[in-house]
């Protein structure tokens, strides 16, 4: 899966599509043509993914984005995406303490930091989006985040909620085709 990881921004023609790779969709699957008939959706989904996980992106560091993605995938019980983002983390210097807390479902136990605030925000946005409130945004700000970085984080977690369901649905469609 690591080889499919994008290294540049912008969805490039011919580059590997992350959702296809994670679902295991290839041109020999009838579903592949159906999915790619909606090419604007495929393109913008991949474009979002590449923006969020471009190692040279400004703002939030790539390791923190990947920790958020892994946390969101585990909380959503998406095995395929949890494996994908966990594998991607191997490319970067590891934060063993944060990874143990995420894996153990106890991110509150981390010492106060921007990352801890981000992981707690991620949990609420994934599991209890209706409980979102102004105080949660103030906590991110108190942890030192600028508004533009808060927008990145919220968009990232919201995108992951979309990607998790897209992968789940496409996997189910593929499974039905191969029955």
């Amino acid at each position, binding site marked *: 899966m690591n080889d499919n990881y994008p290294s540049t921004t912008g969805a490039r023609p011919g580059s590997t599509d992350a959702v296809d790779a994670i679902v295991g969709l290839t041109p020999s699957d*009838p*579903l592949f043509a*159906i*999915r790619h*008939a*909606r090419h*604007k*959706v495929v*393109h*913008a*989904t991949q*474009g*979002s993914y590449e*923006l*969020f996980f471009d190692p040279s992106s400004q703002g939030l560091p790539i390791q923190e984005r990947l920790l958020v993605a892994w946390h969101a995938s585990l909380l*959503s*019980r*998406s*095995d395929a995406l949890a494996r994908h983002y966990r594998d991607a983390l191997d490319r970067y210097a590891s934060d063993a303490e944060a990874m143990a807390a995420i894996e153990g479902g106890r991110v509150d136990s981390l010492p106060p930091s921007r990352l801890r605030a981000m992981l707690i925000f991620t949990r*609420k*946005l994934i599991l209890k*989006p*209706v409980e*979102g409130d*102004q105080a*949660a*945004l103030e906590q991110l*700000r108190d942890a030192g985040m600028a*508004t*533009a970085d*808060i*927008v*990145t984080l*919220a*968009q990232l*977690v*919201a*995108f992951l*909620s*979309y*990607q*998790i*369901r*897209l992968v*789940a*649905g*496409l*996997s*189910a*469609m593929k*499974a*039905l085709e191969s*029955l």
Partner: protein
Amino acid sequence: MSTIIKNKGYTNETLEWKAWLDVVDPDNCTPEQTEVLEMSHPKAKVSDYYLFLVHQPAILKQRSEAFNAIMYAPGGLARADRELGSLVVSRINGCVYCASVHAQRFEQLAKRNDTVAQVFDEPRGAGVNEREKAIVQFSIRLTEEPENIGPDDIQALKDAGLEQAEILDLLHADAIFAWANRLMLNLGEPVFPPPQA
């Protein structure tokens, strides 16, 4: 809009939305921000939602391209059915603002509001026919337990008459509201119209 429907905290009235943090001043946008606002929504320059998200214009651009392609592209699943999926996801997630917008769109496209009244009251089991019931059921399952979506869920949609390409369009419409609802619920709040005198 015809009849106002209000139930369980949901409404098909037109609501406003205000951001909880600072928005970008539309008179002081970069050219990139202006371009992304214009492609996102006809009223984006007077909308707190877009003026907040445009703090990160490249991300908003991809989101808007995905959203507009999913909700408005011709062919495939009828647009009213896409709106039904979005309405149900919004109702399950508790997004009053999105539910009001997509209740109105459903009614504009379907020329009726009976399903809206049902979804507001109780989304489980809602739908005026087997096709709608299948769309509603899938949208609830994908929202609440995506990890349990399997071939049986897809087969239920096929049994109700949906083609493979229509199922994909429904999946997209439901999934994009997992995205949209989370932003609307966590970055600001709906503003209700003043009570009529």
